[in-house]
């Protein structure tokens, strides 16, 4: 009987054990993988660090004026867009709570409705307004994900322009 109790205790402790996330396993921040076009975004740029490094008191001897060697530029990663996979990951992520997921879905539905109205020629929002709404919605999602599900946040950042390309093209949007 004591053996059962010990096994039970082990099971409870194993179930409740919380393993801290391994920082080495974390994905690179979204900015690194972002392959976005230079579209206007209402995103607040990160504030520059306020700490300024003190300049060295003694001037270092100047290096001979050689032209800076350009870093080998890697070819941009192709934009892969798997909407179904993204949707599944968003549904499955534990970084966003139940109510928040539904609230986000409501906002996505509202945005899709606005796109439909725009393409139907109704007096709806302009494409600039739609782009702003889209960017804001993406930012909301990213702000919810970036601390706890960096992998998914990176995937969304990578797909951001591809999704916009689908939405902003009337023919592609009709096929969604």
């Amino acid at each position, binding site marked *: *009987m*004591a053996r*059962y*109790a010990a096994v*039970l*205790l082990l099971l*409870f*402790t194993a*179930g*409740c054990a919380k393993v801290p996330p391994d920082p080495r396993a974390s994905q690179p921040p979204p900015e690194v993988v972002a392959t976005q076009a230079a579209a206007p975004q209402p995103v607040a740029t990160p504030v520059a660090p306020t700490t300024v490094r003190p300049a060295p008191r003694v001037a270092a001897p100047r290096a001979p004026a050689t032209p800076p060697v350009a870093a080998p530029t890697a070819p941009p990663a192709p934009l892969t867009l798997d909407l179904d996979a993204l949707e599944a990951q968003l549904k499955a992520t534990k970084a*966003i*709570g*139940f*109510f*928040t997921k*539904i*609230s*986000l879905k*409501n*906002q996505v539905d509202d945005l899709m409705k606005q796109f439909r109205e725009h393409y139907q020629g109704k007096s709806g929002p302009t494409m600039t307004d739609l782009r702003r709404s889209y960017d804001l919605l993406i930012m*909301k999602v990213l702000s*919810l994900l970036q601390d706890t599900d960096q992998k998914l946040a990176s995937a969304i950042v990578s797909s951001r322009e591809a999704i916009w390309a689908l939405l902003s093209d009337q023919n592609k949007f009709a096929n969604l």
Partner: protein
Amino acid sequence: MNKRTVVLAQSLFVLALFAVPSFAQDEEALKKDLTAVIALQGLPCGEVVTVEEQAETDYAVSCKDGNMYRVYLNAAGRVVVEKRK
């Protein structure tokens, strides 16, 4: 008290010991979720401090800044945040 009863009592004690933090975690997750929902609606709150379940998917919450809301899922499947007085 026989040995079996002692073991059962010990198991129940251990269960209770680990069940309490689990409830607390659920409560904190719910508060975080509701805080995010209120923020997504663009309403002031700061942080949800107390949650009272009125029905399934229907909560009365109070915020750190003093605002109080009712957050619920309506029949159309939309999350609604209503200000309470």
